[in-house]
């Protein structure tokens, strides 16, 4: 009954045989673009080759990889030659690349670099256009796929760190043709929900998977929205245009959630610290003031109030003596001055000259000092030191 059922291995072996015996598959020439490139430590290269519609897994063993004359990377446009067979362990068919040549630069990378340069020139990445990320958002919008690790990681991280924050998920396509416009619509929609912060992103994937986040309309919508935005696209190493234009770039969705909200434990610790600092400070200040008061209370003056009086008294005595001295000198000065004036007056007094034997001669009550003013027979009055006499002029001698 069960005989008609084949084991998985047998089916796979059969298919592998079909592939291996098909001469068209022994040497296939393919042109396409590398994505999901992985360089294994063994030296083997694992990647996919793809165009707009299809993708083929590829492996290039180290013996062949050593002959490469360029460094393959995601987005590199290549020409490959190899055989196509089935890898039994996974049942996947793949091309075992024997030769690989670079075919110009991948179109996607050209588009990426071109858009990046253009938007940069326009100032969309400029620091002055970045909005401030709130420290404690109350309501966060998340634009991502409703399934998958990204949304789970974001919600669980936010709820663990800051459970008072509400998360609103705007389910969105995050890969494929319609993803970009879906993301844009959700950004516009999010503006009606009174959000403090917006997280836009998705988990890791190939460059093609992440491509919507390199689309110009997404970049412009992020730039235009007035909600602070954190981008969280793929892994640490993936840089998309959305990352450059967002207000903050997170390496991963979990990283975005960590940047978006503080840890409530940290806040509690911080508050505790502030409490300690406040208390320490006020006690320090009170103690200091007490010390100052104590020092003042113990000061010499307050302990010996008489000293205040004694000081003053001493001062008064000092001034008293000073004043006395000044008065004394002043008096002496005046006295000396007076005596000298008296002496001067004495010298000038004509009476004192008469004392020494001089006399004053008057004619008609006028003092005569010149013989020309008199003539013989004039009656002169002569004043001596003691008394006055009258005399008649007998002879005048001119000198």
């Amino acid at each position: 009954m069960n005989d008609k059922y084949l084991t998985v291995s047998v089916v796979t072996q059969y298919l592998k045989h079909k592939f291996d015996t098909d001469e068209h598959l022994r040497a296939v020439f393919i042109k396409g673009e590398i994505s999901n490139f992985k360089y294994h430590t063994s030296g083997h290269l694992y990647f996919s080759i793809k165009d707009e519609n299809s993708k083929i897994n590829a492996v290039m063993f180290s013996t062949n990889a050593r002959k490469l004359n360029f460094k393959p990377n995601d987005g590199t446009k290549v020409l490959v030659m190899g055989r196509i067979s089935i890898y039994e362990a996974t049942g996947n068919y793949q091309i075992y690349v024997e030769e690989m040549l670079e075919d110009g630069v991948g179109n996607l990378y050209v588009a990426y670099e071109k858009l990046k340069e253009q938007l940069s020139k326009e100032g969309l990445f400029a620091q002055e256009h970045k909005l401030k990320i709130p420290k404690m958002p109350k309501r966060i919008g998340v634009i991502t796929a409703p399934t998958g690790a990204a949304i789970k990681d974001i919600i669980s991280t936010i709820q663990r760190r800051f459970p008072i924050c509400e998360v609103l998920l705007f389910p969105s396509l995050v890969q494929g043709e319609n993803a970009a416009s879906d993301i844009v619509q959700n950004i516009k929609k999010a503006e009606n929900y009174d959000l403090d912060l917006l997280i836009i992103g998705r988990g890791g994937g190939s460059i093609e998977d992440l491509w919507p986040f390199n689309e110009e309309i997404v970049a412009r919508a992020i730039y235009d929205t007035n909600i602070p935005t954190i981008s969280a696209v793929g892994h640490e190493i993936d840089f998309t245009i959305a990352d450059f234009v967002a207000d903050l770039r997170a390496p991963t969705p979990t990283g975005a959630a960590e940047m978006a909200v503080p840890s409530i434990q940290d806040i509690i610790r911080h508050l505790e610290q502030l409490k300690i600092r406040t208390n320490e400070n006020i006690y320090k200040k009170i103690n200091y003031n007490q010390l100052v008061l104590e020092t003042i209370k113990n000061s010499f003056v307050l302990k010996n109030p008489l000293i205040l009086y004694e000081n003053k008294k001493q001062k008064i005595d000092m001034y008293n003596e000073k004043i006395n001295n000044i008065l004394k000198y002043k008096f002496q000065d005046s006295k000396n001055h007076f005596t000298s004036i008296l002496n001067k007056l004495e010298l000038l007094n004509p009476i004192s000259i008469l004392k020494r034997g001089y006399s004053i001669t008057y004619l008609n009550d006028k003092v005569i000092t010149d013989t020309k003013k008199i003539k013989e027979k004039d009656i002169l009055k002569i004043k001596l030191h003691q008394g006055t006499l009258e005399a008649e002029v007998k002879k005048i001698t001119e000198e």
Partner: protein
Amino acid sequence: MEELKFEQKIDLLEKIVNELEKDDVNLDESIEKYTKAMSLIKECDLELKTIEEKIAKIVKSDGTLENFVEKN
């Protein structure tokens, strides 16, 4: 005065504590600031203790909200 948000309270608290730690604040001012700081700490403490855990919501295409349930 409008009720401050938690974040603003923490900011204000930090400002007050920093001021309090400056040496040129006199005792009267210090006590005033201390009282204010302590009452803010009390308010924040209380807010943290009475936290209401929020449930994540999904915004449906018609714009209404629904509790988000993880699908595996």
